Each structure stands twice: as C-alpha cells, then as structure tokens.
C-alpha cells in the first residue's frame, strides 16, 4: 500500500471501566509502532464506561487499520476517528510563564485576550490556566516567546462531534 501523509488523528473510544483495559488499548497502539501524542481517560456519566481520547500522528490507511483493530477488542465498546469529521475539541492547560513585577500587567492582558486566567502569581512568574479549542491554544502558545515558558502542563485534547452523539453514525 502506498504511504500517505502523516497527520494528527484524534481517536475517541468508549471502554469498559475495568482494570487492564487501558493497558490493552495502549499496548495495541504502541505494538504497532505509534507514539501517542496525548491521552485522556475518565469515566462517563455511565460509571461502567470510560471515555478515552487519544492523539496519534500517522498515515490515514494505517490509522484506519488501528481503529478497526481497537474496535475488535472485547473491552472496547465503540471507537471513531473524529478528526476527519466536524467536531468540537477542547483542552485544558496550566502554563507557568516568566513575569517579573513590571511584566505582570502585560502578561495578564495577553492571557485575558485569549480567555485564559491567571490562577497564581509568583515573585518572578505567574501560572495561567487556559481551556479551549486546539487552534486557540496553539495561537496563544505561539505568542509566548522562547524562554518565557517555564512549565507547560496539558490534559490532552478531548473531542466531540458537532452533530451530537459520539460514534452515532459509525
């Protein structure tokens, strides 16, 4: 098969909320040589199920194969690759940036312009909390200068279809 271009895929899956299930999913992905760029898992409104969202870079055809194989796992109730469909995405970040007392106001303003909030101020830095769509997050991070970011903690992207109910039209 010809190799396509490697792009980011966001795969979302409903898993049985049981011991070992996440390991099984991660095993399958890493066993095929992929690096998981981000991963987020938590129980859903139904406590017996967990929602997992995962970002993987890879070729379309190979990713389709991975999605099919995930679907075959007995503990995986549903899977879809939503990145190719209309979707809403969100991510939460905590960013510690350098900000001396004289720079504080400017940094706070920049955060505000991006709907981010300052959650903690330290003597020469501040921690900003930001939540939002991927593009917006990237815009903000791009504005920060090299050396300005001391710490970047991200939850990984979560995703939901624009047309409602996840995985409905599989």
């Amino acid at each position: 098969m010809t190799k396509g271009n490697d792009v980011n895929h966001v795969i979302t899956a409903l898993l049985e909320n049981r011991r070992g299930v996440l390991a099984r999913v991660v095993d399958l992905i890493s066993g095929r040589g992929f690096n998981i760029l981000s991963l987020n898992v938590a129980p859903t409104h139904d406590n017996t199920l967990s929602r997992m969202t995962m970002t993987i870079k890879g070729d379309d055809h190979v990713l389709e194969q991975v999605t099919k194989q995930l679907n075959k796992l007995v503990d995986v109730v549903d899977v879809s690759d939503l990145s190719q469909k209309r979707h809403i995405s969100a991510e939460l970040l905590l960013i510690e940036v350098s900000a001396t007392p004289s720079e504080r106001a400017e940094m706070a303003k920049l955060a505000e312009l991006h709907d981010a909030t300052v959650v903690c101020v330290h003597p020469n830095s501040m921690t900003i909390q930001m939540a939002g769509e991927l593009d917006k997050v990237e815009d903000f991070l791009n504005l920060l200068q090299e050396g300005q970011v001391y710490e970047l903690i991200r939850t990984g992207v979560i995703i939901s279809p624009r047309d409602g109910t996840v995985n409905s039209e599989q």
Partner: protein
Amino acid sequence: MKTGAECILQGLQDAGVETVFGLPGGAVLDLFAALYRSPIEFLLTRHEQGATHMADGYARATGKTGCCIVTSGPGATNAVTGLATAHMDGIPMVCISGQVPSAMIGNDAFQEADTVGITRAVTKHNCMVRHVDDIPRIIAEAFHIANTGKPGPVLIDIPKDMQSASTDVVVAGDLNIRGYQDTFISDDKQIDALAEAINSSKKPVLYVGGGVIASGATAELTALARKTRIPVTTTLLGLGAFPETDPLTLRMLGMHGSVMANRAVSHCDLLISVGARFDDRVTGRMDMFAQNAKIAHIDIDPCAIGKSVAVDLPVLGDAKDILIKLLDRVEEIDRGPWMTEVAGWQKSFQFEYDKNESELLPQFVIEKIYEVTGGDAIITTEVGQHQMWAAHFFKYTQPRTFISSGGLGTMGYGVPAAIGAQAGCRDKLVVCIAGDGSVQMNIQELVVAVENDLPIKIIILNNGYLGMVRQWQEMFYNKEYSATPLLPGRYARREKVPQSDYLPDFIKIAEAHGAKGIRVGEKDKVAATLEEAFAYNGPVVVEFIVKPEENVYPMVPPGAGLMEMIQSMA
C-alpha cells in the same frame, strides 16, 4: 453453593468440553481437586507448551474449542507459544491459568507472573477473575468469544483464592458482551456486486484459506467452484477446504506453492479470496501480486479486509452464509480459453521430484504415506522442509485433515497436535510428519500418547539438518551451514554418516517412552514399513534416513513476485 473451582468445571461442561489437557501446580490445586471428582477427561502433559498444542490440535481436528489448564508463573509462561500459535491461525481455545492469591498479586510472590499482561498480544481476549461470583459468566463468555467471529484463544487467569471461595451464583445467565461483535450480517449489495463480477469475469481464480474450514463451508465452496468452473488454490491452512483430486485444483499457492497456482493468480482478472488473509508468504512481492486482477475478499474479520492489499470487492461476513447466497446468483459460464490456459499449466507444473534418485528422498516417503493411507488420515506436521513436502505430496480432500502451524511456524507443534487430534478423533489414523530438528522440541509428550492409548504415528524425515534453514543458507548465504547440521560435529563435512552414528537415537527415544521405533533408509522398504506402522496398535516412531541436502521446490525467493519461481537448482 459451589466453590469457584466447581463453577469452573461446571462452566467447561456446560460449554461441551469433554477433554482437557494440562499440568498442575500450586496455584491450581483447588481446581485439580475438583477435577478429580469430575467426569471431564484430563490428559496430563509433560510440558505446558504440549498442553496448548494438544488443545489446538484437538480443536483443528474436531472443530470444537480446545481447552487446557496450567498453573501460575512458569506454567503460564510455558503456554505462551501455544497461545501465539493458535492466535495466528485463528484456532478456538480456552486456557485457564492459575494465579497467586489476590492479596499477593504485585508482590513478586512465589510463581507469580503477570500472565494477563504477558499473554495480551497473543490472545483474542484475556482477563483475570476478581470475584468468585463472576466465574460462571466469565467461563461462558470465554467459550463464546473463542469460537465465534474469527476464532482464537482466550485466557482466563484465576487467583487461587477465587478457586476456593464459595458462591451462590452458579449459572452464567444470558450473555451480553457489549464490546464484542459475534455475528456479521452479510450485505446483499456486496454479494450482488461480487456475483456480477464473477459472471463477467473471463479469468477468475478462487483463493481459499483456513477461514473456509473454520466456517464449515467446504461443501459450499466446492459447489460454487464446480458450478462456475473456477479453478481453486488454497493456502497452507486452507488445505482440505477443496479436494486436491478435483480437476479444478491448482493446489497450494505462495512461496512454496505450485507454479500452476502462482501463474493462475498472476494472470487472472478476478481473484476471489475466501477466508484468507494475504499473508506475505502467500503474496510474495506485493506490488506484483495479482497485478491484472480485481480483488474480492470474503472475510469475517473486518481487520483482514484491506489490510495488506487494496480490495475492490469486500464482502464482510461468514463464509458459509455468503457462499450459499453467492451460489444462487452466479451463472454457469463457459470460459473456454481460460480453462485451456489453466489446463496447460496443470499439465506442465505439478509438484515433482527426481524419481530416478537412488537415495531415499523425503518426497518419496510422503507420496508413499499418501498411497498407503489412500489419503484417509489426519496429517499433522512440524515446521520446515518436511512440512512443505507434506503439503506437496499428499493430496488433501477433506477439511480438518491437515493440521500445521502456518502463521507462527512453531517447531514443536506437530507431535502434541497429533496427540490432541487423536484424542478428539479416536477412530482416525493420525500421522505426524516431522523433521529431525522439530521433533525434538516436544518429544516428551510421546508418553502422553502411550499412556492414553492414542496410537499416533510419528514419521521423522531425518535429513541431519535444520533443513529449511540450511536451504536458505545454500541459496542465499554462500552455502555456509552455520548452526544447521544436527549430526555430531565430526561429520560436519558431511561424508556419508553411518546410520548407527545418528544422534539422538530416535529408536531408543521411542522405546524409552514406551512406543515402538523403526528405522528405515532404503526406498524399497518404505511402503511395507508404513503399512506395518499404521497397522500397529499403538504409537510408533518411524525414522526415515533421507538424502541430507534435498531442497523444497518450487520456490519464490524472498522479495520476488509469484511469477519469479525457482523450479530447481540446476
């Protein structure tokens, strides 16, 4: 009230299990205590790998789900190769492993291994029992998962305290596994499209794999081929899915397939794959595979379709169901020119060997096994040259009569698989075709055959080499036979080795295990010896001293296309 151990055995009985293979240990003492009082037949193996291959051979011969029990730690790790073998070939099996008590898990307890973690990649599904109440459900689910969809092995890891605990929940209840799809309703549109492609094809070929046997669809496949007059080639695992005595047969395809099959696949305009997975040993160089053909793929595994080759006509579902529907929609068409072309290949390119050779040739032995049995036997094989010769020179006409490790290529499979097959089919003649290398990997299981009156016949083709590897060294590595001669070092230069100096002495090995051993080196004694061995009422090892450096031909060299076959060294 029942104990967990009793629930396990009840679950096995409810699933129809009659025979279990395995070996006890500390973590399954409770289970074995219950087994002592159970009607289930238990065959004590001498190694857990043997137990898994026996369960596998039993499953392949009978179509039922094989079952084995092993202890924790080393028992479970010994089972890994057998699980992987069954996993690759889609064989239904349930393996129960003991585990250290729940409270000790994670403490590096005595004989603890993370069995669920270790076997994750080599099972269709696995799980650990956390509550004794779950046992009936988990056992029922395991058998359901093992034997539906694309079959495969399931492992259940059961901590010792779960076996001794008591429960009121002694029945499984209704199965509802929400993450598991067991049936695939075939799509009429896909079947119509395929029927139309068949009806308009001028040069079709059927390419058949083990899925047809798993689905029980051999009669339907044969009916389809005969109605449409489409020639049929099979994979190694597909042997027996279509009678190799039928005029439409092209025999096996692939790296060591027939020239006629590989030509037909390379020239066809429609390749209809049924229950096969386009393995690299079958396709050769991918961009040269069936270049002129539309590809149709009937398979129950959504992952198999489109995995290694782009498919024009996918049909997802059970082979039997689809073939029945297809049969009504295809027409009897006269494809004269294609039939003539195919007949030409069939005339020129049967499997061959040098009939004038005075030394005993391995191919000759297999041909004699075919003649003496009249083709009516279950053949198991080890892995190597002898395995390919067993595919070439015996003609398979019935499903579940050729039992071999295809996907994983596991040396050590053939002997225990023969014992398992014989345990499942007591009235059949079961013959294991083995190499002198492979047969040593699980020969300890011969005792199991003797003890349980399982009169298997082990035919060793002793060429004094890890022959298949030696063949690659001869062809691609300068004839430097690194670590492939199996005879004593002083014969490294291969002057004629006296038979009395062959090591190990397979006759003594046979006798030490309580079986009969016969050694033969002359052509004219082969048929009579086989008749004697097959008539003997018990396990026999027949060692044939064959020409050491014989090669398997034809062969598609690695990386080449199916049309680039080497037909002999000359």
